[in-house]
């Protein structure tokens, strides 16, 4: 049995597990059975993917007599699919393990159970599809199932709104993909991926397809300004679904973009790449700034997903720029950085969403200003979230640093590009990315500091208890992965290299032979990074510091009132709030970029009402892009509404005049 058959079988089993959940709903072990099966099948996905990256089963394909006539449903398993299978397998497996514990707390588990395994299966189908119809069908099934999952808590008004916005954006995205595939297929109707690769296209046509893919896959992944659904929908879903959507589904969207733009479309003209780089960099800054301002823990994480998607898109844009100039080694570096970051983001964003879910479970709160002090009540969760937060802030020796370091190595190669415009633009975009990376660290210091450190701001946080062992095991698994990959990045780079080789016909130098797991992307004289060394250094210096503190400090534990300097009986509310922590950045960057406004209402002398500080900050994209579109649609439909009340003869006249108009147009055109 070839790899593609085996994977298809598992995907079909996952899809079939959905309806099965309905039949076994009365059994007490239904949820455990569904999630446990999902773990097993995701584990198999990961194994198949890893085997594929090692070279087994690559290039196998299968045609089923479904789908479009004469074409059938084509499935293919290549290195790119194998890589994303690993993402889906590890991410889906860990999240399913988490769900075994987390799912018990769900009020209405049957709103999740039928859709959850089918959603995993649909994502696998997207990865396997090798013709336009199968791809779009799987994509749409994936969208609709995730929509159903977003609607789990449908009693809440916000959830319904989020699901509606998500459905609209998903519909728009699929429409763009449909047009993109129509153009890809060309006039001869080459709907199979293999046939699409053979079609020759003009640069303009390729650029149009690229724009459509940016709209279609970009709206799914969360590329600005199409990201608006993401911070609404991801937090609205139950936390394991949020983790799956943010950690895995956005990667499937990126897979769609990579498959079409890098594999099917082939090398594009150099002038197509700046748009992608710039969009990615702007998305990164916008996303992380909004994450910085957000009070809701899960929504802040969703905004941070947008940032990471922006970073990945910028890396993909760099790959396009290098590839258009035939700089294969540089392109391979940027592409490796993109794929590496995709893997890393799967690991730490899933981990962080699981952590947010654990906090939600333990306290019932998502509002950062109600949390605090969780490190005392939930020490293990807090530690694992800390690992995730450090990883996403790109602190060495964790995995986030390795991939972002590779990306900046690629940015530093930009002077070798012959086009002056790109030479100027890429460092500027690199500056934006560096800003985003720094802001990400600030944002996660804020989330961790306000949420987990300090003292509890509410009774719920004061009484929080540690979550169950399944959840901790799942988070521990991903945290270990973050550390392991960060310490040994060379192994991951070598594992990715078959994918890079298949797409770009070039790869990074083999990292396996460098001593002590050093990674050297270009040449040793230029740059190298050793995660293990940093790890050892951090461990040694921290141990030394700890030893010194314990050796020379008093052994007696003293507990003294905090903040007692002239401020007795301090309430926990006097701690930094999430808004207070964000204030400096809000004043510096938020006023111009996000249109943030602060208003202070001071009571008149003698008036005993409290003074009020109100902060208004939100996504500027809503006001600047979506509100005018919505207003226009509303105005036009109100005007068009009159057409509903015409007389029969007027309707006929309209049809008649339109016909005449079209005929006249035809006459002039020919």
């Amino acid at each position, binding site marked *: 049995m070839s790899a593609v058959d085996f994977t298809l079988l598992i995907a079909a089993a996952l899809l079939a597990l959905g309806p099965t959940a309905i039949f076994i709903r009365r059994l007490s072990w239904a949820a455990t059975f569904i999630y446990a099966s999902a773990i097993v099948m995701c584990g198999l996905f990961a194994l198949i993917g890893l085997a594929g990256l090692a070279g087994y089963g690559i290039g196998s394909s299968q045609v089923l007599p479904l789908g479009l006539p004469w074409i059938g449903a084509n499935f293919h398993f290549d290195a790119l699919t194998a890589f994303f299978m690993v993402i889906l397998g590890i991410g889906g497996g860990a999240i399913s393990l988490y769900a075994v514990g987390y799912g018990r707390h769900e009020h209405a588990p049957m709103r999740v159970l039928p859709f959850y395994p089918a959603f995993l299966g649909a994502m696998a189908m997207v990865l396997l599809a090798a013709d336009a119809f199968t791809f779009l069908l799987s994509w749409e099934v994936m969208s609709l199932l995730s929509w159903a999952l977003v609607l789990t808590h449908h009693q809440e008004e916000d959830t319904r709104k989020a699901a509606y916005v998500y459905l609209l954006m998903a519909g728009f995205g699929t429409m763009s993909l449909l047009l993109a595939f129509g153009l890809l297929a060309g006039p001869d109707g080459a709907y199979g991926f293999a046939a699409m690769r053979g079609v020759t296209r003009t640069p303009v046509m390729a650029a149009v397809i690229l724009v459509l893919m940016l709209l279609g896959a970009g709206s799914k992944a969360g590329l600005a300004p199409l990201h608006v659904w993401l911070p609404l929908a991801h937090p609205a879903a139950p936390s394991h679904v949020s983790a799956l959507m943010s950690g895995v589904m956005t990667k499937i969207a990126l897979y769609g973009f990579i498959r079409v733009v890098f594999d099917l479309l082939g090398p594009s003209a150099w002038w197509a790449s700046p748009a992608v780089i710039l969009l990615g960099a702007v998305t990164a800054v916008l996303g992380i700034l909004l994450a910085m301002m957000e009070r809701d823990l899960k929504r802040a994480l969703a905004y941070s997903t947008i940032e990471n998607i922006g970073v990945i898109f910028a890396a993909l844009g760099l790959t396009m720029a290098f590839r258009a100039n035939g700089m294969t080694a540089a392109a391979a570096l940027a592409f490796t950085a993109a794929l590496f970051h995709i893997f890393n983001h799967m690991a730490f964003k899933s981990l962080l969403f699981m952590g947010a879910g654990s906090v939600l479970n333990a306290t019932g709160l998502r509002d950062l200003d109600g949390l605090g002090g969780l490190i005392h009540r939930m020490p293990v969760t807090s530690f694992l979230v800390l690992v995730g937060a450090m990883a996403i802030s790109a602190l060495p020796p964790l995995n986030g640093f390795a991939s972002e370091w590779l990306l900046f190595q690629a940015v530093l190669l930009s002077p070798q590009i012959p086009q002056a415009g790109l030479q100027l633009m890429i460092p500027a975009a690199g500056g934006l990315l560096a800003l985003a990376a720094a802001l990400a660290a600030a944002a996660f210091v804020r989330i961790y500091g306000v949420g987990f450190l300090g003292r509890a701001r509410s009774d719920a946080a004061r009484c929080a208890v540690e979550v169950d062992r399944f959840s901790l095991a799942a988070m521990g698994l991903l945290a270990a992965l973050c550390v392991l990959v960060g310490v040994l990045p060379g192994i991951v780079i070598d594992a990715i290299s078959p994918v890079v080789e298949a797409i770009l016909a070039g790869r990074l130098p083999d990292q396996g032979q460098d001593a002590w797991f050093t990674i050297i992307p270009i040449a040793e004289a230029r740059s190298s990074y050793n995660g293990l060394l940093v790890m050892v250094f951090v461990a040694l210096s921290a141990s030394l510091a700890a030893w010194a503190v314990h050796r020379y400090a008093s052994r007696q534990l003293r507990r003294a009132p905090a903040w007692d300097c002239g401020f007795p009986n301090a309430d926990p509310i006097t701690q930094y709030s999430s808004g207070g922590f964000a204030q400096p950045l809000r004043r510096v960057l938020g006023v111009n970029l996000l249109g943030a406004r602060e208003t202070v209402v001071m009571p008149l002398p003698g008036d005993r009402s409290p003074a009020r500080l109100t902060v208004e900050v939100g996504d500027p994209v809503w006001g600047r892009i979506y509100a005018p579109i919505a207003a226009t649609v509303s105005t036009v439909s109100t005007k068009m509404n009159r057409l509903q009340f015409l*007389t029969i003869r007027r309707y006929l006249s309209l049809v008649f005049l339109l016909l005449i108009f079209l005929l006249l147009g035809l*006459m002039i055109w020919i």
Partner: protein
Amino acid sequence: MDRIAFDIAHLLAGGLLLVSFMMIYQDRMFSLLRVFAFHAVVLSLSVAWQAYNQNAPHLYITAAIALIFKAIIIPGALRRIVLQLDIHREVENVVGIGVTMLAGIGLSALSIVLMLRVTNTADAFAREDMAFALSVVLLGLLMMVTRRNAVSQIVGFMSLENGMILAAAGAKGMPLVVEISVAFSVLVAFIVIGVFLFRIRERFDSVDVNVMDRHRGDQR
């Protein structure tokens, strides 16, 4: 022979267009129905001539259907309807005859210029037929738009359909099944509209579509 065949086809198709113009300026119900019957006769002649020229016996059936249904049965039935509804004295043009005629001339010019330009690779028979057929279709639509009475709107619709049959007969290779199904659909449409006319009449005491509009619930 070929030359004469072409001329006769041209004559018959042109005749159909001419009869369409005659329909436009009829402002009495009975005369309109008579002209409509004549329209169908000319159509069936034209189709029969195409059948003879193309050596396509099934077109004779089309011609016979046109003759029997459209020249005899439908005008007869419409005449009964008009008598029963007692609307044979009504004059019901929305726009004046002169303006309508001018619009009709413009439409014919448009369709002929357009069709001759679009179909310059097709053979001469089909081209002429297509050009005239489009004019007849447009004139039928014009009649539906400029009339107030439901019965004359039906007549406009039927003449529009005649134009389509003319086009279909001109294009070689149209299967018989399609023609028969078209003929049947027209018949069914006629029956349905006829039934509706009586229902409307029972309800509103008129078949003037403006009166119906006034009765619509959502009228503003």
